């Protein structure tokens, strides 16, 4: 971060007009990845909004919602619909990983600085980050995916397997009963409900704050919608990746066009709606959990 440190007020003021004119944008997410996130959060909101009333069916808000949409039948129908959408998205993602790793032989998929797989540096980053929170050390520099981003990814990955499996086991219980023990039919509801509750509470509080609402990204990190971030954001948030790409002389290949206004505005409307729905569900969930227990 020495380069940025050099940006003293004096140099900053001379650089500013030039910067505004030719602010560079770098691609972080591809279009399919951005669509995947959109499908993921839309179906997740749908699943949460229909799943929570079932989990907390003795809660007045749940019953009000149920009677407003036509009772349990309508809720379960929509829940299953969103589940299929999310399952397809998950399968699409698996196929994407598979073809990137084994057909296109893309390097660094499972190991290295650009991989989603956790490594020793993530542990060091976690410790270093917490030391920085407490004022005990400098802020660590992050690579393409920081440890909390990897955690988000794997939490969703694991969550989809667990919630998906337990959900389908309930949906097609007589079929699953052929190879699952009797107690598992009882366990799947517990697993489904608890894991979903974890996912809902985690996404609507931790992920929202870490990724979108924290100072520096507030009110929303647009990179998942536009796919691009400014050079300044790139340098600041993912210093190691920037430095590495710059050292390899590949910065030029990562450059992208400035996102168009209408798209950003559209994404903001969608994104803020999602965050608003999520926060409302979070509050209702906490009320139902602690009020009903």
């Amino acid at each position, binding site marked *: 971060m020495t380069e940025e440190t050099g940006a003293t007020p004096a140099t900053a003021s001379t650089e500013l007009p030039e910067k505004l004119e030719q602010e560079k944008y770098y691609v972080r997410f591809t279009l399919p990845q951005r669509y995947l996130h959109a499908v993921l959060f839309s179906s997740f909101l749908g699943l949460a909004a229909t799943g929570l009333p079932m989990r907390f069916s003795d809660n007045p808000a749940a019953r009000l919602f149920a009677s407003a949409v*036509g009772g*349990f039948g309508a809720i379960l129908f929509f829940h299953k619909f969103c589940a299929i959408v999310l399952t397809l998205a998950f399968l699409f993602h698996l196929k994407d990983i598979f073809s990137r790793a084994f057909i296109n032989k893309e390097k660094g998929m499972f190991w290295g600085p650009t991989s989603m797989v956790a490594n020793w540096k993530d542990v060091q980053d976690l410790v270093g980050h917490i030391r920085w929170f407490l004022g005990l050390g400098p*802020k660590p520099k992050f690579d393409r995916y920081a440890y909390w981003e990897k955690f988000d990814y794997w939490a969703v990955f694991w969550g989809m397997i667990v919630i998906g499996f337990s959900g389908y086991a309930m949906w097609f219980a007589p079929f699953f009963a*052929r190879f699952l023990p009797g107690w598992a039919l*009882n366990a799947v509801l517990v697993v489904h409900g608890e894991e979903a509750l*974890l996912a809902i509470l985690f996404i609507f*509080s931790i992920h929202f704050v870490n990724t979108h609402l924290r100072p520096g990204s507030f009110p929303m990190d647009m990179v998942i919608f536009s796919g691009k971030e400014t050079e300044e954001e790139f340098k*600041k948030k993912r210093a190691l990746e920037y430095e590495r790409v710059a050292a390899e002389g590949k910065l030029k290949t990562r450059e992208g066009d400035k996102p168009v206004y209408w798209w950003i505005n559209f994404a903001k409307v969608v994104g803020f709606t999602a965050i608003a729905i999520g926060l409302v569900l979070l509050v209702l969930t906490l009320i139902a959990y602690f009020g009903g227990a």
Partner: protein
Amino acid sequence: MGLAAVLLVGAPFVLRGQTDCLSCHADKTLQDASGHSVGVDADKFHGSMHGSLICTDCHTSIKEYPHPDQPAPVKCASCHADQASAIGGSIHDGVSANPCTSCHGDAHAIFPKDDPRSAVYPLNIPRTCGTCHANEALAKKYGLQNVYATYMDSIHGYAVSKEGLLVAANCMSCHGSHNILSHKDPKSTTSRINVPNTCGACHGGVKDEYLSGVHGKSLAEGNQKVPVCTDCHTAHAILQPTEATFRMQSTPICGSCHKDQLATYRDTFHSQLGLLGGYVETARCWDCHGAHGVLPASDPASPVNKANLIKTCGRCHADANLSFVQYQPHANPHNRKLNPALYYVRTFMNLLLWGTLTFFTLHTLLWFIRAKIEQGKSAPGRIEQGKEAKHD
């Protein structure tokens, strides 16, 4: 005529037949000193049950004309002694100064109870009882529920009032007539101990089924805590068991005694979706356990006996198989001894849930505070990149 008038007014004479009295009382506008109507509809009276009687048979204190202004009250009991003594021991004793006419109506127009003109004709009974029991003020005075409207909307009330079904239950069918007792009185037809017999007078098949079940047997032994017909079906509203309202309210009724079973049922998908309504088919207690003749699971005839589970579960779950019915509809994830696997699954999931959330809540909170501090350190109005300089 002049002589007759003189005779009538001038000298007392013995009254012999209806005509003597009716020569005055046939005037329907006739009133006594206190303004009460003392007119009699002669035609109606002649056609009535008592039409062949002579007025003085009932109005015994009147022997001759002119008679006193306030003759003694008529005593129906002098003929109807049994009914009078029944009323005397009933809940209606002393409630009315004229207990007989309160229900039977105009004393000069009493018809047999199978005559549609009678106030106690089966189709007229609800209205007759309703004169008092649909009266809010009276209901309040005696601390009664106003059940008239509920009854009239019920399947019994509908059958009586809309279909004119003579065999449908009217008030009297369950409560009796002259000898009505409070349901708290064990001798009452509506006491808990007698309700199955009272309902069973019509619903004989269900009564037999009930008496063969655990609840019926226990009731016969004198245990009044067991549910009787009215606990589930209610006494007056009598909801249709297939209706959403009945299905939605039936579970807590069983749960009022079977508390553990209700609590464990509440944890299941059956209950979760059942509570949301709009999908009333979801299994309630009696869908699996049976309704009237509930038997212990150990009884081979019980629908929840192991041998019958595939059939019972299969009523909703078409593909139910032997391993499917290993599902426990009352599993308790809090009970390590009874449901160890479920207990450990739940414990693990809870640890995962609260462990993850606790760690990341702290992590995010500390991060947020640090980020705010760093933001505050940079001079106001300074653009983003200035911030990073502080902690390098």
